[in-house]
């Protein structure tokens, strides 16, 4: 937990405690006590911006209401409405409530609810003291509420009611806690912060009131803070009294802990503390808006700085690229004669393209002269009996197709076959492919189709 500053307003006295959390224990770093009129100077000097407040409100409204059982999210509205009905003089207020338990009243089931309300005017005057110096309030709690949470932590949540007493110079605050909940609060005037006979009388009367009117039977009295430190009385309390001692949970001298128990009660990490926060909704909204504006402003500034760096980097890149472009343009201008020369030659080639195509077309045909020379070489000693009667040479794509027809002057079939085969082989050796051949045994004629490349 980061450092927190808790401030308690105990009538004319203001106690300030600088605390932090270490391994589950509260560490009190510094404490100061002011008179109320010295506090503004402290706020002016103090650098810290956020404070948690605990107040003994001079004027507050409390009651126990019987309310219908409804869903949690509607219950708060009903409580607020009831407070307005019960206390019509309260126009603008902040409150907290504690559901004490289910009860049946006049045959109807309902929730018995303790309510505590303070006028927002009172709260604004306290908050205004801080905002004058640019300070913010984290939370503002009634001292009875924060002390009641302490009672739960240190004495457990029990069915036994306890009457707690805290004191300041001119008043005592008495409150009843049972089942971990606040049942009743009373503020009474007193002469000093310590316990005297008049205070004992007030405590005894309050115990009787609890028994007779509230039907609560406190089993003990818990004295808190200054009320515990100084006990100068001749009268006896009608209940046993104990001192609230939380020094085992706080790293600080015992005396300091006892003296500053009220402010540190607001910052102890205790469950349910937020329920008693009386900071008005409009201040919460203002703080929320301030936080949002601050974060967004920081966000804009941070990313603007990053954007500026990026922009600078990009600018350098762009200038570098532009220099290269200028250089390239100059080079290309110098190369213009090459381009013009090329264009000139290209147009000349286009002009001569039909001639080139024609030449290529002509050159793609195989050499007929060579083919005819090869054919003339077919006749030899071994093929003298071959009589070629016709030859047909026709060009095809990249080849010549040659059809040879003839007869064989053979003595017998064997001779005919041998002569014919020899002729075929000779054709093949002359670089020609035989596509088909046909030998007619009846008239010793043949027909050979050959491909020449």
């Amino acid at each position, binding site marked *: 937990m980061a450092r927190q500053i808790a401030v308690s307003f105990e009538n004319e006295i203001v106690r300030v405690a600088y605390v932090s959390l270490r391994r589950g224990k509260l560490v009190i770093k510094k404490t100061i006590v002011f008179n109320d009129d010295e506090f503004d100077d402290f706020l002016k000097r103090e650098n810290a911006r956020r404070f948690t407040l605990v107040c003994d409100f001079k004027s507050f409204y409390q009651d126990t209401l019987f309310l219908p059982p409804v869903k949690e999210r509607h219950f708060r509205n009903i409580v607020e409405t009831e407070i307005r009905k019960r206390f019509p003089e309260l126009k603008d207020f902040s409150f907290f409530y504690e559901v004490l338990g289910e009860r049946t009243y006049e045959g109807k089931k309902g929730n018995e609810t303790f309510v505590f309300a303070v006028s927002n005017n009172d709260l604004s005057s306290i908050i205004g003291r801080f*905002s004058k110096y*640019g300070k913010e309030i984290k939370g503002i709690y009634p001292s009875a509420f924060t002390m009641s949470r302490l009672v739960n932590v240190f004495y457990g949540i029990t069915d036994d009611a306890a009457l707690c007493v805290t004191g300041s110079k001119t008043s005592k605050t008495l409150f009843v806690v049972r089942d971990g909940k606040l049942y009743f609060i009373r503020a009474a005037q007193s002469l000093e912060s310590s316990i005297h006979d008049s205070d004992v009388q007030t405590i005894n009367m309050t115990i009787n009131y609890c028994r007779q009117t509230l039907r609560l039977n406190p089993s003990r009295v818990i004295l808190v803070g200054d009320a515990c430190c100084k006990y100068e009385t001749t009268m006896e309390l009608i209940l046993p009294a104990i001192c609230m001692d939380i020094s085992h949970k706080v790293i600080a001298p015992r005396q300091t802990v006892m003296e500053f128990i009220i402010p540190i009660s607001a910052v102890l990490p205790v469950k349910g503390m937020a329920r008693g926060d009386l900071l008005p909704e409009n201040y919460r909204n*203002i703080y929320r808006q*301030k936080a949002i*504006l601050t974060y*967004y*402003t920081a966000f*804009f*500034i941070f*990313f*603007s700085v990053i*954007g*500026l760096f*990026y*922009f600078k980097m*990009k*600018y350098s*890149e*762009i200038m570098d*690229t*532009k220099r*290269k*472009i200028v250089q*390239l*343009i100059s*080079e*290309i201008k110098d*190369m213009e004669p*090459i*381009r013009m*020369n*090329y264009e000139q*030659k*290209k147009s*000349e*080639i286009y*002009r*001569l393209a*039909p*001639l*080139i195509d*024609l*030449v290529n077309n*002509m050159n793609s*045909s195989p*050499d*007929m*002269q060579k083919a*005819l*020379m090869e054919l*003339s070489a077919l006749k030899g000693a071994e093929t003298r009996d071959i*009589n*070629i*009667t*016709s*030859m*047909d*040479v*026709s*060009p095809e794509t990249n080849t010549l197709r040659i059809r040879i027809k003839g007869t064989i002057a053979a003595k017998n079939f064997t001779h005919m076959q041998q002569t014919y085969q020899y002729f075929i082989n000779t054709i093949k050796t002359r670089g020609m492919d035989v596509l088909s051949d046909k030998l007619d045994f009846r008239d010793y004629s043949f027909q050979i189709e050959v491909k020449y490349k």
Partner: protein
Amino acid sequence: MEKELKRLFRSYVISGIVFLIVISGVIISEKYGDAVSNTLKKLQAVRSDIISMREAQAGMDKTLTYAKALIPPDIASRTPDERIFIVLDDLNRRIKDAKITITEMEHKGIEVTLPVTIKAVMSGKLIAKDYTAFVQNVGYLQSLSLPFFSIGGITMSQSQDKTSVSYEIKGDLRTIKLQ
């Protein structure tokens, strides 16, 4: 507190405006940077193309030299038809014993074509010599240039009595009109 809130709000608005300006600047510079990079790439491509043009010129020169060598000196002074008839007359002189028949001159675009048929007979004891001359004539026909002789087919057939061999060469004399 309201003063502080107003001050914060003013800072928020100003910082927001600055942020918007900076972001706009970043976006514009990004797009401008892309455009400039594209321009650089295109110019580099142009330079590369011009270098390719320079390298291609050797090949172009070779092609032009070859193509120009094919062009006869009288290309400007004679029409394509004239040049075809000159070659035809030359053929007549060269292949004396052959019957050369022609049909209509065809003009297809810039190409001028004249179908030609050459018929002759090789007979008697001179068949071998005639065959040699025939092969040489075929070689000659193949060597013609503007006009070219495109041989469509050669047919040779022996006479019934085996004393002679007749041949027929079919083809086209082809040339083009050069601008």
